[in-house]
């Protein structure tokens, strides 16, 4: 939990810089209360809610990765699910084909995703706008097709028996939803902190420059292609982490986790959350997972409502929830 402490520390440091003491106290309460709630959630809620929270966090990691591309760099990809799938297949193949333990297969999977993302990113970033969207889509369809066709991935049946981490040295069993919750929480906090760091770094500000005005970034002397590939790689690794968590959560991976629709869902979460903020993807993921859950209770026609929901968000809610709240505050002040 030390990473979490760092985040809280960083935020309260920021609040301390605020001249008004009252707002400092409010800010601290705003930060501390949710943190306590998140930490205590498995103890104070139902198992159903714990499972929902796990799903939200996994979706949040996925959306954070996509946001690094879509929100920070301004590159709209419709293919990030390929890295989600690669993450799951990586540890799946590692466990069931190669017989590797997770402490080898997880870093190896992420490294492989990184290397692949360099190549794929190098091709995709030669284009921009809708062409970028189409080529990322094509790449994901390529992997989707491969996952269905290859014997290694067990075709469209997918692979089951994906291992969860062995926490017996702590006397814990990660098959227990509560234990798994804290595992996912730790990974999520780490992943989001890394993404946050990247966005706030000098590298991240170049990505923002590319989003705002690519020609200007070039004129400033930046080799924008390299930065775009860098963003693509980091985003893809984050999506891979989400894929590993997802596969461990369901003990299962199949080609559907690389589907076009899943990539779209990730983009939708980013849009809901408001593309520019770090907290946006997490909020977007929460809203999305809850709405999806709600819909599945009400109707079996998930796809239709997903589509309608998607259209409405894009048409009327472009700044996302965070954006809407921000503009509300801007109007007031």
């Amino acid at each position: 939990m030390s990473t979490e402490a760092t985040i809280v520390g960083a935020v309260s440091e920021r609040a301390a810089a605020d001249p008004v003491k009252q707002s400092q106290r409010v800010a601290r309460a705003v930060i501390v209360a949710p943190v306590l709630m998140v930490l205590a959630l498995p103890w104070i809620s139902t198992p159903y809610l714990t499972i929902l929270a796990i799903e939200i966090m996994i979706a949040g990691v996925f959306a954070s990765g996509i946001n690094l591309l879509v929100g920070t760099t301004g590159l709209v990809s419709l293919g990030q699910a390929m890295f989600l799938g690669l993450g799951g297949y990586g540890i799946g193949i590692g466990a069931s084909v190669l017989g590797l333990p997770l402490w080898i297969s997880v870093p190896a999977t992420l490294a492989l995703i990184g290397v692949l993302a360099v190549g794929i990113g190098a091709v995709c970033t030669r284009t921009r706008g809708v062409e970028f969207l189409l080529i990322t889509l094509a790449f994901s369809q390529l992997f989707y097709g491969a996952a269905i066709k290859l014997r290694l991935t067990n075709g469209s049946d997918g692979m089951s028996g994906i291992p969860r981490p062995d926490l017996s040295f702590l006397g814990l069993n990660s098959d227990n939803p509560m234990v798994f919750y804290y595992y996912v929480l730790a990974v999520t906090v780490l992943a989001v902190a890394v993404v946050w760091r990247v966005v706030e770094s000098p590298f991240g500000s170049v990505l923002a420059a590319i989003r705002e005005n690519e020609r200007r970034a070039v004129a400033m002397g930046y080799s924008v292609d390299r930065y775009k590939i860098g963003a693509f790689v980091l985003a893809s690794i984050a999506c891979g982490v989400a894929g590993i968590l997802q596969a461990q959560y369901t003990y299962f991976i199949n080609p559907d986790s690389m589907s076009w629709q899943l990539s779209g869902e990730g983009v939708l979460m980013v849009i809901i959350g408001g593309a520019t903020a770090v907290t946006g993807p997490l909020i977007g993921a929460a809203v999305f997972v809850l709405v999806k859950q709600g819909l599945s209770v009400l109707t079996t026609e998930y796809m239709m409502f997903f589509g309608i929901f998607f259209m409405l968000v894009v048409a009327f809610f472009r700044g996302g929830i965070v954006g809407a709240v921000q503009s509300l505050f801007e109007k007031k002040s």
Partner: protein
Amino acid sequence: MQLFLTQILNGLQLSMLVFLLAVGLTLIFGLMNILNLAHGAFFTLGAYCGVAIAAATGSYWSALVMGPVLPFVVGFALQLLVLQPLAERGRSTHLDLALLTFGLLFATAGAVEWLYGSAFHAIPTPALLSGHVSLLGLSYPAYRLFIIGIGLAVAVGLNFIFDRTLIGATLRAGVDDRAMVTALGVNINVLFAVVFGLGAALAGLAGVVAAPLMSVYSQMGIAIVVETFVVVVVGGLGNLKGSFYASLIVGMTDAMSQAYLPEVEMFAVYALLIGVMIVRPQGLFGRVGRVA
């Protein structure tokens, strides 16, 4: 050799089917700068209309004529009432519009599933075309030849409209300079909506035409639209002639890989696309010369 010839014809038939979709997508992108990800929805819509009309009238031919009507109306309304106003309000860039149509693609597939269920449907092949034709020593289904004929007819027809008629000239001018066409006194919004509707109708036509061959189900449009995207990118976004040649390339690649390399069937066309993007990011037939 027999197999090879059959696959060439199959490839040609698939090419023409994809071309019917790609040409509308290209037209819409070239003219309005909108990447219509929902194009596959019109394919589905056309196919289901065809199924319903064929079931009601018992005639394939009335399905062929009436099937594309609903896609036209929906496409026309979508452009005039949704996409155009959003673009004008400056709320959405062309990327946002692409994402909006992405939602529409899934909404349509979901709605069709809701109305018709997830069962498979089909239109029976019309009696006139149900036989086989002997061609170059092959016995080839007449209906597939009919599809090739329709595709070629549309290609020739569009080519004529574009190169020889006033409407075509206006459209070509619109691609180059939208303001210019407005200055000519053409109601550009309605013109755009008509073109959008026409593109949708061609996709719907493809849906009806495909119905006797492929199974009609709610997600059929999602499956084929990605292949169409490959065509429009390989052909160069917005390039009409390019989309015809690219349809041939993609259709042939698909048919040949199905016959000779079934392991790569699912992703041969994507590998093709990626190869093209590495060599020529602007597409094989695209215009060169965009400064970074």
